[in-house]
């Protein structure tokens, strides 16, 4: 036994010594390490839609204009100034001088034209090309002047040009790298340069030392204070939490379980920043399904759901109950929406169901003509939907409605919804302006998807079209107020809640201000620094 027992001590002791002697795996100084569960597919702005891709785009590239933190004010970007013709159909952008791509090539108006043409070219098959659909022609008047001619006036062109998907590209880099552009090579004008991408492990960018053209919405116009930024992909929630709490592999994440927040808020080594984003989670009724065609059933469901419980019990108070389709932080939201909304009132819900002829059966579930009131709800099996549906199931059972949960993985759900097999669906949608969500969901031309409710109201159609082009600000607000009123009154949705976000960071991280646009959180990280 004496001989046998010694075999392991040598290698184990040597191994342990090596680990202890080795330097700790701390990151290099002034590096921001962001933790998230999945990786982006690409950083070619015309190939992606994901939030996690968009936040990288803002740091690698610049856009012609920017949307301020208030989601209203348009501020300069690569365009120093811009002029809009009286009819609102011609935009003339004067580009900043001295802007260079990471490769050293100076930015010209021709690059802007190339980028926007590539974005709307059907051959590019950009999933976001509808954001520039109103543009008819793009002209590079001289090296520093770009002219955009529109088919009709647009209230949203500048919003769309401020999105990360409108990032300006270097045509030479696109030609040179072909299909590898956006994964193996990137050339932007942004505050950070592409350094390394180990797929599903880390995405690394380093400071662009020449950057001095940052937008005025940041205190520091450039170069960035951070040496580098690393996006680390950590799929497992607990692992991500460990690294952030210990401060060993991460110093900021937006992807931490809500249940941990009360504890993390008390940790002096961490800072929890809660902030609002334009987002709504809702139940949507498919008007093609007979069961929910009766408005009394839809209203009853609206009255029977206690939204405060969803926010407080499932999401630890990180958000607010929703009354209408628009987030209160988005311009155009109808401030008096509560007047038309449905308050929590189970008695009223029961009365509405009684009136509709649905009487309680032996097990409490309502019955009409021998048919039980059983309603399937489709949702993604994740992001808190299963818990939300379980709560709603209990609340609706209380008034005699049997909810059947149809939980599907993300890859499968869109096709099923498009086929229209849902009676009710639970879903969420980010938005920065009213058109982005109301036109998308409630215009009849968008049936069967994304208007998956098959909602038809000719008046709403007409108002939405007018909202895109109307010049008068007062009329603009009237239009969207009317649309929201009609949507709420039709009870085509049961709006559930507006989630807030929490960004959890090491106390050493300074001046990181989350941006609510497109739910990205990390816009240009110009002001941010990480202390030792």
């Amino acid at each position: 036994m004496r001989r046998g027992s010694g075999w392991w001590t040598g290698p184990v002791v040597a191994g342990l010594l090596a680990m202890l002697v080795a330097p700790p795996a701390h990151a290099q100084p002034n590096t921001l390490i962001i933790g998230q569960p999945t990786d982006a597919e690409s950083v070619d702005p015309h190939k992606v839609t994901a939030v996690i891709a968009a936040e990288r785009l803002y740091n690698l590239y610049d856009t012609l204009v920017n949307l301020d933190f208030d989601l209203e004010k348009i501020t300069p970007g690569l365009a120093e100034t811009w002029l809009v013709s009286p009819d609102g159909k011609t935009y003339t952008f004067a580009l900043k001088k001295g802007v260079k791509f990471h490769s050293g090539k100076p930015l010209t108006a021709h690059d802007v034209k190339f980028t926007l043409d590539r974005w709307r070219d059907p051959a590019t098959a950009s999933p976001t090309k509808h954001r520039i659909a109103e543009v008819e022609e793009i002209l590079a008047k001289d090296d520093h002047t770009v002219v955009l001619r529109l088919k009709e006036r647009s209230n949203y062109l500048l919003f769309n040009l401020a999105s990360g998907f409108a990032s300006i590209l270097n045509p030479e880099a696109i030609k040179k790298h072909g299909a590898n552009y956006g994964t193996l090579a990137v050339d932007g004008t942004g505050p950070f340069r592409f350094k390394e991408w180990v797929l599903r492990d880390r995405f690394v960018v380093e400071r662009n030392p020449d950057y001095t053209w940052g937008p005025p919405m940041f205190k520091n116009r450039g170069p960035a204070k951070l040496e580098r930024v690393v996006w680390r992909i950590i799929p497992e929630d607990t692992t991500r939490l460990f690294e952030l709490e210990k401060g060993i592999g991460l110093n900021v994440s937006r992807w931490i379980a809500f249940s941990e927040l009360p504890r993390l808020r008390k940790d002096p080594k961490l800072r929890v920043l809660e902030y609002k984003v334009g987002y709504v989670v809702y139940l949507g009724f498919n008007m093609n399904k007979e069961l929910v065609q009766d408005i009394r059933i839809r209203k009853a469901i609206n009255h029977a759901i206690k939204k405060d419980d969803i926010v407080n019990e499932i999401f630890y108070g990180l958000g607010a109950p929703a009354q209408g389709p628009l987030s209160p932080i988005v311009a155009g939201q109808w401030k008096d929406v509560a007047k038309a909304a449905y308050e929590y009132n189970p008695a009223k819900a029961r009365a509405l169901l009684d009136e509709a002829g649905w009487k309680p059966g032996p097990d409490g579930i309502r019955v009409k003509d021998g048919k039980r009131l059983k309603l399937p709800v489709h949702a993604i099996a994740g992001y808190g939907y299963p818990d939300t549906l379980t709560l709603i199931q209990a609340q609706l059972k209380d008034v005699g409605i049997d909810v059947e949960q149809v939980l599907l993985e993300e890859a499968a759900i869109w096709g099923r919804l498009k086929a229209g097999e849902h009676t009710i669906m639970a879903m969420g949608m980010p938005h920065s302006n009213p058109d982005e969500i109301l036109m998308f969901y409630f215009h009849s031309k968008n049936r069967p998807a994304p208007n998956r409710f098959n909602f038809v109201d000719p008046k709403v159609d007409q108002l939405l079209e007018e909202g895109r082009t109307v010049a008068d600000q007062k009329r603009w607000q009237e239009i969207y107020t009317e649309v929201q009123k009609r949507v709420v009154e039709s009870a085509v949705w049961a709006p559930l809640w507006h989630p807030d976000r929490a960004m959890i960071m090491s106390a050493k991280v300074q001046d990181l201000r989350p941006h609510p646009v497109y739910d990205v959180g990390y816009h240009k990280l110009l002001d941010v620094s990480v202390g030792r």
Partner: protein
Amino acid sequence: MPVYVARRVLLTIPTVLGTSILVFLILHLAPGDPATIVAGPTAPPDVVANIRTQLGLDQPVLVQYWRYLSHALQGDLGRSMLTQRAVSEEVAVAFLNTFELVIAARIWSLLVAIPIGVVAAVKRRSIFDKLSMVAALLGLSLPIFWIGLMAIWLFAFTLGWLPVSGRGGPLWTLDGLRHLVLPALTLGGIQVPALARLTRSSVLEALSQDYVRTARAKGLAERLVVAKHALGNALLPVVTIIGLQFAGLLGGAVVTETIFSWPGLGRLAVTAILTRDFPLVQGTILVAAVTFVTINLLVDLLYAVLDPRIKYA
């Protein structure tokens, strides 16, 4: 022997081809449309249709399979629908990461399990035997994600010796090695109990054989009896299990890779399946199938080396 090897190698062709057909069909039968996923939920229908055409998904399934196969035979596995990266590159990188992990796990699990098994057999009914077999039973019943999280909690979170997760640098750097330790420890750890128990029972059986008694009667030292006579014969079933366990290691790697954010083949396959990235799923399954078939062949060949009575014609 060469004839046997050639036949076995030829037999891998229908196996791999069958796997690829099966995977292709399952993928196309499963609900979920890659074009919708590439386009994102907010894209209008014309954009989705455009992307579908670009990806060739508007063609009949047979045409799609034939196109895939003819390209694959020329070494071109296509490009990932989502990342646009060459599948061969993505799979190669992920495969190497998993390979490093699985080999490291294999080596340390063998280094621990076989000595434990042998000592437990030789010192049968001793305290060591009883303790190690109870520990093995306990180890067999623990789920891998729990072991992984406990390892992180102890070695990274509490003691701070090792990084929590991630790939770190390349394997030959200290950073790369440090990142490899915990996932390899976890993945190998779950293989130790079964291997140790099997080694113990195999050695016990060998020790009761006549040739061992003869060896002892010759006056050979007990150490030599065990090492030369018993162990060599006891290893045959152990080698079989080692081969079979490789499949388990590849499967267990999915969980280990997720806990430790290790960018390997298991995670690649899961991501590809969840996003219905057809070419990427095909590529990962192809590599996994070829690996498994190859390991099984190697194990079969190893029999002949370990036991001269086994001959392949």
